[in-house]
């Protein structure tokens, strides 16, 4: 064989999108991360859920509707494991995925300030979705320690809707801010060609750990502040 054919270029590193099988492997693992987040939160006795990290990762990288699929699969699977009560909450997961996904597409993941806003927005929308489910399906209870908060707010004379929504948003705000920044840390470790929704700020520049710690601190402060205000 001659020299010319020998040095023939077979492929280029710059081409290529996301392999389908990568998506197919990422979605279930992200769904499991949702479940494990909950396990971690309860094992470490944290007063938050951490059950939408996988949803956030996929929504911000592959797009809002892939994120929604992760949400649906998470709750459906939990339904198979523990019974059907988790299934209605798939709606919350879907709402969260859409906020994170479209938010990223619209550039809300480009800098710290807007990203923080995006996390708060997802908290608000998710709580708006969660309140009616909690009230209609569960009569206001969740079986979580935030029920005590609900009872407290009820005792101060608020009605069921106000009580459920406020107790939910308090936990949710801390939860979603933290989840968003944790999701960012995971995205930093994924192959770069996955980001089809839009540019996401470079994690290296900011120092993941610092960011996450900041997210935690802000979340906790927000929780404490809103608790004292109410």
């Amino acid at each position, binding site marked *: 064989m001659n020299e010319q054919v020998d040095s023939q270029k077979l492929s280029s590193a710059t081409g290529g999108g996301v392999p389908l099988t990568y998506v197919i492997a990422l979605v279930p693992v992200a769904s499991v991360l949702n479940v494990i987040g909950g396990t971690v939160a309860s094992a470490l006795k944290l007063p938050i859920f951490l059950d939408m990290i996988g949803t956030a990762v996929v929504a911000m990288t592959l797009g809002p509707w892939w994120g929604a699929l992760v949400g649906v699969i998470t709750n459906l699977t939990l339904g198979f494991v523990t019974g059907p009560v988790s299934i209605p909450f798939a709606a919350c997961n879907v709402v969260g995925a859409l906020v994170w996904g479209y938010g990223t597409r619209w550039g809300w993941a480009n800098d710290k300030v807007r990203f923080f806003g995006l996390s708060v927005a997802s908290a608000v929308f998710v709580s708006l979705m969660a309140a009616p489910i909690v009230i209609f399906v569960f009569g206001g209870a969740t079986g979580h320690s935030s029920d005590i908060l609900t009872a407290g707010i009820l005792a101060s004379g608020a009605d069921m809707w106000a009580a459920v929504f406020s107790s939910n948003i308090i936990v949710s705000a801390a939860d979603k801010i933290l989840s968003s920044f944790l999701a960012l840390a995971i995205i930093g470790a994924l192959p770069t060609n996955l980001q089809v929704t839009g540019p996401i700020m470079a994690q290296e520049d900011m*120092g993941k*750990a610092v960011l996450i710690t900041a997210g935690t601190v802000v979340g906790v402060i927000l929780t404490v502040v809103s608790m004292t205000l109410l």
Partner: protein
Amino acid sequence: MSETRIVCNDLGHVYPNGVEAVRNVNVSISQGEVISVVGQNGSGKTTLVKHFNGLLKPTSGNVMVGDLDTLENSVGLLARSVGYVFQNPNHQIFAASVREELSFGLKNIELEDNEIEKKVNEVAEDFSLTQYLDLNPYRLGFSLRKTVGMASIIAMEPNVIILDEPTTGQDFLGVKAIRDSIHKLSEQGKTVIVVSHDMPLVAEETNRVLVMCDTELIFDDSPEKLFANKEVLSKTNLLPPQISSFSTEVKLGNTKDAILSVEDALGALK
């Protein structure tokens, strides 16, 4: 350095699902010994060593680490005298830099900042990690990551160090580096407990072997005696180092003590 002696009295462990993993183990490990624990998967060897730093608590009998009964003391407290290096470094690495990773345990035992810095630098020097201190540990190859995992435990200066399968997945140089650290730790007077399937490592680096078989401790003697003991070897399916099998087969050396290394075999020729 103070002394930490590990003593198991009639140690038994039954898991919550009813499976008995360790039965009636009596063993005493003195400061400065280099010991290996071998046996098949499911023989109870990992369960046994997890009692040495309190990760598992005995369901019968007791384990004393120095003057501390592991039943009454937390893993956090025992970690100051017994370090446990897990098999897969990915199960413990989380920090954004090697420096942070190495200081994690030291922060947990509430040392002063300047002391932490000093110890991190020392241990980094010892394990030739100085040039990587500010790198993200996930950027390092598997062998280096494993070294970081080990160094982060040794930085806490425990008297006893447990290494769980230290050479799994390592290439020649990785294995060499692990063996060198075992030497060094032993020279510093530390107790080293190696749980391993790597028989050449067991033969050449340790001077006492505990063999677990079907939840029980069936052998506690030197590697020379182990690899010459056909009964124990066949019962536990342990495969001696190639050079030991060779020497036994061609009757090199005496029959009571097996040849453990190529050097030994060459020595026996003369």
